[in-house]
């Protein structure tokens, strides 16, 4: 990804990039703790160590993102909003790397940590839409919904999903084919199966059979899971 992000908008207040990234990491840490129901202050110490814990709390409280109630921490509305967006970017990035680029869960984690800081709001929305507004990350934790997901609630099915998830008789337009089966790409394209092509699923068992124009093509389930379509109902 050679995505260059323009920084400087929002309430950076002259903070350096490292500072901002550190704050984002802090918010993310607290979001995870909150998700696990571990909101006592002692849990912060367990998570990041004693010295770092006070740093973290002070910095976040200074920005009025987090407050302390007795021995527990709470997100302020702005902080909660910010934290959920960071986690959302992180987990969407994981989904993208995992589903589309076919990376293992371990690699996914590391790269997603970098993505979460650089994705713009627009890019995040596009990725979310592209992936069909997924609900969870590859590790099964919830992805906080964004504005695009709220709009999407009105529609019933995700926009983009594997061909293998269609029901027999349903149609879709291919959006992309993962390069997992590199050796098959040539053959598929010779048969006219490329992104932009409209396909109809004819049967799922015992083997997937699709209809592309006047061509009928049988393929393994494995391959059908790696062809993504935008469904047309």
């Amino acid at each position: 990804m050679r995505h260059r992000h323009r920084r400087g908008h929002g309430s950076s207040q002259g903070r350096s990039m490292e500072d901002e990234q550190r704050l984002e990491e802090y918010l993310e840490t607290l979001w995870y703790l909150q998700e696990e129901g571990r909101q006592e202050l002692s849990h912060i110490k367990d998570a990041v160590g004693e010295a770092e814990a006070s740093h973290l709390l002070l910095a976040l409280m200074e920005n009025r993102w987090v407050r302390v109630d007795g021995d527990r921490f709470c997100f302020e509305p702005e902080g909660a909003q910010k934290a959920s967006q960071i986690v959302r970017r992180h987990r969407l990035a994981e989904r993208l790397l995992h589903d589309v680029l076919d990376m293992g869960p371990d690699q996914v984690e590391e790269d997603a940590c970098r993505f979460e800081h650089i994705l713009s709001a627009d890019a995040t929305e596009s990725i979310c839409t592209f992936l069909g507004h997924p609900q969870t990350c590859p590790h099964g934790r919830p992805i906080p919904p964004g504005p695009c997901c709220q709009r999407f609630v009105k529609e019933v099915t995700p926009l983009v999903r594997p061909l293998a998830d269609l029901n027999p008789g349903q149609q879709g337009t291919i959006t992309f084919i993962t390069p997992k089966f590199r050796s098959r790409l040539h053959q598929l394209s010779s048969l006219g199966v490329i992104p932009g092509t409209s396909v109809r699923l004819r049967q799922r068992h015992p083997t997937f059979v699709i209809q592309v124009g006047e061509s009928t093509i049988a393929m393994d389930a494995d391959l059908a899971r790696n062809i993504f379509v935008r469904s047309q109902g």
Partner: protein
Amino acid sequence: MDHSILGEQGSMKKLLLVGNPNVGKSVLFSSLTGRYVTVSNYPGTTVEVSRGNARLLGRLWQVIDTPGVNNLLPHSEDERVTRDLLMEEGGHKVIQVADAKNLRRALLITLELAEMGLNQILVLNMEDEARDLGIQIDVHKLSEVLGIPVVTTVATRKKGLDRVIQSLEKMRVGSCTTSFAPEIEQAVADLEPLLPEAPISRRSLALMLLCGDETLSAWLNARVTERDVARIEQICRALQTKYEEPVAYVVNRQRLLKADQIVDQVMRKGIQEFPRRFQRIGDFSMHPIWGLPILLTVLFLIYLVVGRFGAGFLVDLIENEFFGQVLVPWTQKAAQLIPIAFLRDLLVGQYGLVTMALTYALAIVLPIVGTFFFAFGVLEDSGYMPRLAVLVNKAFKLVGLSGKAVLPLLLGLGCDTMATLTARILDTKRERILVTLLLALGVPCSAQLGVILGMLGGLSMGAVLIWAGVVMATMLLVGFLAARVLPGEEGAFVLEIPPMRVPQLRNVLVKTTARVEWYLKEAVPLFILATLILFILDRIGVLETLQSTFQPLVSSWLGLPQRTTEAFLIGFLRRDYGAAGLYSLSRQGELDPIQVLVSLVTITLFVPCVANLMMIFKERGWRTAVSIVLVVFPVAFGVGGLLNHVLRWTGWTP
């Protein structure tokens, strides 16, 4: 063979029919050419190419029906043969046949032909079906855009044939080509000066090379210096690093986008759904539930044609009536005139060329294989076989194969040797080895199957079921284990399913004749060779020595009489002959029911015949051939012995 044609008729212009599979090339070919058509395998392949002569517009043409292709960037052996035919020599002309219903995919090829710089016309066939579907194509506009004559036909009704012939005069090189992304165009420009003169354009050659077409390397190495080959490879590699996806895919996509643009300009599609009769049958034959009864019906019909008519009626007629009553007695009489006993035995003795080699080749195997080829041709032409592959795909996964493997395995019931050759249609080397192994291990050829079923039928239904069960279980187990041992990934399979059609009798007959010819040319010499070897082994006493060497294994482990060793030995020379040897033993009352069952299971699993082994050796290399023998031999005797002891222990009588 090609050269001899060139030598005799060098001045004859060649007319190549090129197009996607199942667009009606063969039908158009039949209408254009006369009665005398030759079907031969393209040298070194299993791909069949038909040739015939035609007098069109007052001159004689050689018309060549090329194998169906989806792309002239070869991916399959069929595509490679067609591409090679196009490259063979300059000056020939191309009739591209297209399914009017599937213009987009045809245009992919049209664009490639234009790029190659070949003179062509485009024939939009099945124009009636397209019209029924509400597809309207502006032929004049299409002709304008492509810069070549475009005509519509309904080949099955010979409609539009005159238009095809008339337009031969106006053949041209297509003017519509694809421009690719700047990186690709740059690489093409870099490659062109390095490439040799060829009957097709340098641009098309450059694109093939950039797309990683390895089939060209031999051709290239023969014409370009080593230094240039290295530079060409370097340019190709450099381009690939710029793309995440294979360059071939990128190029195909850009071509298809161009095709889509053309389609948008010339085609209008209504939204009529047109129910096609045979499509329903086709859909049922792939259905997880209905597919099974259809499969059983098909198998039963094959059994009727091959088992009853071929192996029963025809073999009886030829072997008993002709060979038994006429040919053999006559030769024996004639042989009496030969004063040397040795020569007499060589001709009509126990292992004689007439009594054994010819009787087997022509009287027993030919009718069975011939009817099998016919049934197989009908299946091929109907479009059922790919549907069968869809049906069995999941079950085949268990043994590391894709559904496509059902085709060579089925063909193995005709002749394992030929089936081993057709394992080439499989995508991965791993699958080809697995299929070769399973063919060698457990698939009995038609002749052997006939003898086996004849023997078991005399026992009981239970015996047939035990035999089939044990053989299939062994194949499954060995396949399952081999799939885990063999390296390489499982190929995810992609298979185009052609429309279901009523088979064209002429098509089937032409193909059957060509294959029977092939059988006579390839197999009969091997029969004669095998018989000679047996004759010599018998003469010098080796046959007897071998029998006593293997005696312990045969008598104590398998529990069989000593004379069965002979059957196993000749079973190696000819699988079916081994079974026939057992047959005669059991008829003489030398085998009890358990012995019959054990010996038949053993000989079914036993090593393939010499011809098959030679084919394995040729196709898969000696390492694989030796490994297969090393697996098959112990498995055959292991399973046979085990069955013997289990049956004796349980006291079950078949």
